[in-house]
């Protein structure tokens, strides 16, 4: 293996070609074209699926054939020309969409970038639609994704660091942040962690997420994945770091805090009163999604005296013929709900509508009429499901539904006491975890002044955001969440 790493191109033209072909496993999509450049013979090698034939034709072949003076490099019509004698490097560049030109005399191969791109068009991400605001989304191509961000932040401090992960897949990854705005300690920590990664393959942003997490056993996601450029821009302006993986439309944001999962671009694109109202509704949904079934179970099993006699009567009557205990009832309904969701999520639209009808109408009503499950339980589970879908980031909603299960178990065993203890455990956990050294529950964690609360429970008007000063000279001054900033 070491020999291959150090191998250089050598020998006659034919030997060099064989060397490269052997390195690429004699794959048949490696095309080799011999031609003569003025009297000297040379060869052009490329992987034909990765390059654009027209560019090879017009930028390399034609100029070389028609040239009258100068050497090979001077005749090429290309903007990115590399020269390398190392076999590994040549092979890598060939796989990145380069075209190699080798001559008998020159030891180094001349590499010209002529990549072919088959990209999906820029569309609104399906999982994160907004009512108002930009409707573009990231795609699977790294360059396009960086373009989408650069196009929104035209500032010299916008910094991109390229890295490559995966010894097999060689996936390009970009780490983007605003220099001088992002906390250097956080950037250094992130770079350190990324530097220590050793992977064979990197398929998606999700893989990277799992490798970077500090608390893998936590039910809460510790990085935020989004497909919305406007969202990423807003986080970059808050001094956070974005990681983009080539081939994945999800962008990782870190360090992230709990409350980021409850913010949506919609809040900022509508008026502040509307934004705050919805923010508030979402935060209530957090508690509802975790607790509602548990509260119901606790009430019907332990604390029925909490309900006045009128309501208690109707609840208990609907429970009379139900053969299951409330906890089993709740778990059964939650699982049915997840089944329906999982079944519908990947099917084409017309079929998934059928599932919706079968699930919602047929199972929902039939199960009550058959007295397998009580009316109230259907209402409770329905509300819980809706509350968990309210979170703007889908992943977080799933975490909430999963947390609902231990909560229900605690309620079934210890009633309200169990709920209180479980909630305490959840909140203690939230206070404990950190992402990249930033407490997850910021700003409730370390107190950082009144300003840090402005965008948490409510979305206060943008003009109330004061400039928060940075300590270092010449650093950027953050003025607003979606805001303007200027050099001081």
């Amino acid at each position, binding site marked *: 293996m070491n020999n291959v790493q150090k191998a250089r191109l050598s020998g006659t033209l034919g030997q060099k070609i064989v060397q490269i072909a052997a390195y690429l496993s004699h794959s048949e999509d490696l095309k080799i074209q011999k031609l003569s450049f003025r009297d000297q013979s040379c060869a052009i090698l490329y992987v034909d699926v990765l390059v654009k034939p027209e560019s090879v034709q017009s930028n390399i072949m034609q100029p070389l054939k028609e040239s009258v003076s100068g050497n090979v490099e001077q005749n090429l019509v290309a903007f990115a020309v590399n020269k390398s004698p190392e076999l590994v490097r040549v092979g890598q560049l060939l796989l990145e969409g380069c075209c190699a030109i080798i001559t008998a005399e020159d030891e180094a191969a001349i590499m010209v970038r002529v990549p072919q791109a088959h990209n999906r068009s820029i569309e609104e991400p399906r999982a994160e639609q907004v009512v108002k605001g930009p409707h573009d989304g990231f795609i699977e191509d790294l360059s396009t994704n960086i373009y989408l961000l650069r196009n929104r932040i035209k500032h010299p401090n916008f910094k991109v660091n390229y890295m490559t992960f995966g010894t097999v897949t060689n996936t390009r990854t970009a780490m983007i942040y605003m220099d001088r705005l992002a906390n250097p300690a956080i950037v250094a920590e992130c770079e350190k962690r990324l530097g220590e990664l050793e992977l064979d393959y990197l398929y998606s942003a999700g893989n990277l997420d799992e490798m970077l997490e500090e608390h893998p056993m936590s039910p809460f996601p510790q990085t935020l994945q989004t497909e919305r450029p406007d969202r990423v821009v807003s986080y970059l302006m808050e001094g956070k770091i974005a990681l983009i993986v080539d081939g994945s439309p999800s962008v990782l944001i870190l360090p992230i805090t709990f409350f980021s999962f409850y913010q949506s671009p919609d809040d900022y694109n509508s008026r502040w009163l509307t934004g705050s109202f919805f923010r508030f509704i979402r935060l209530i949904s957090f508690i509802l999604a975790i607790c509602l079934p548990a509260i119901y179970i606790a009430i019907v099993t332990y604390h029925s005296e909490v309900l006045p006699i009128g309501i208690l009567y109707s609840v208990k009557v609907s429970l009379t013929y139900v053969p299951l205990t409330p906890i089993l009832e709740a778990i059964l309904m939650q699982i049915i709900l997840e089944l329906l969701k999982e079944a519908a999520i990947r099917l084409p639209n017309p079929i998934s509508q059928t599932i919706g009808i079968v699930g919602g109408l047929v199972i929902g009503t039939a199960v009550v009429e058959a007295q397998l499950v009580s009316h109230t339980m259907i209402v409770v589970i329905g509300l819980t499901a809706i509350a968990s879908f309210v979170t703007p980031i889908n992943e977080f909603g799933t975490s909430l539904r999963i947390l609902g299960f231990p909560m229900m178990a605690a309620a079934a065993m210890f009633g309200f006491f169990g709920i*209180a203890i479980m909630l305490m455990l959840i909140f203690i956990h939230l206070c404990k975890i950190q992402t990249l050294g930033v407490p997850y529950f910021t700003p409730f964690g370390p107190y950082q002044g009144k300003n840090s609360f402005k965008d948490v429970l409510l979305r206060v008007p943008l003009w109330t955001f004061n400039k928060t000063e940075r300590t270092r000279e010449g650093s950027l001054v953050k003025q607003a969440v979606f805001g303007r900033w200027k050099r001081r």
Partner: protein
Amino acid sequence: MNAPKVSKPQLFFLIIKTQIGIGLLSLPSDIHHLAKRDSWISVLAAGMVIQIVLFAYWLLLRQFPNQSMGQITERILGPYAGKAVNVAYYVFFILIASYASTLYVQLIQLWMLPLTPGWVLFLLIVGTSVYLAVDRLDVIARFFVLASILFAVLLLISVMNFMNPVHLSNLLPVGRSGTMPVLQGSERTFFAMLGFEVTLYFYAQVEGNRAGMLRVMSLANAFVTLFYTYFVFLCLIGFSPVALEQINEPVLFILKGLAYRLIDRIDLIFLTIWIIPMTATIVSYLSLAGRSLTARRPAYRKLVALSGVLVFATGWCLSTIEQMKSFSQWLEYGYFLMITAVPAILWLASLLVRNKEKAGAA
């Protein structure tokens, strides 16, 4: 353990969360046995006493701004006597935590889960407390600050009481009970308001300068005193004197009278929320226990875990004792000495030590 620092507001919440706990629920009827209608004056008087104690703490801690109580004792009394005092503190913290959790479990069994075995409840409470207490002080503070939002909810619920018939005339005439009963009442209140001694250990971990520390401590005391006075006052005007003597947990009982179309037993909701301050108290004592014997992080974690086991075992034993009354009296007076007399003596000693040093230098 030097690194994590808490801010002054966080210290405020650390103190009030420790102080407000199980004691309040039965306090109004406890004092009423002694001070009758002037119970509320007793609470205020207890607050004054605590203020004096806090002032003594401040005088002591001011001289050792970066050392916690465990280090101060060893510095003033020397390594052996200091260690002995620290071990005594440790034992008392464990006993107080066990006593508090015993009362806590009895309360839960009485009001919520009469059939659940006590040890399960002990396990849940102590387990949750240890989970938080092993972590750094700033994490504990973070949780306490967050949980303090619930005080707003509790106050809101308590305001509903004014929809019940209230008799302000129950309080009149003011001062009829006389001085001694009021003072006896404030003695009881003092023990219900324990928890201010956390300052002895957390003071050193507050960031920033030491100016304004006394103010934070006093504000916390004022808040707790007023909070307690308010609830005692509510019970005094809500119950007739005869009824108040017969009820164990008047603060919960008074809410039982409220009924709405959607919800009938507000007291259960109140108790559910009250579980959090009650657990917070145990968290604080476990953390104090850890801090009283060690200042190093890994040792602290192990010690807190061990203390959790001890609290669990002691609490369980306590719950089987029939004569809780005599035990609690003994415990309270012993503890009283530990948190008032010992710091005061240490303060005086510190003056002497410092003078001696000065003399030696001259």
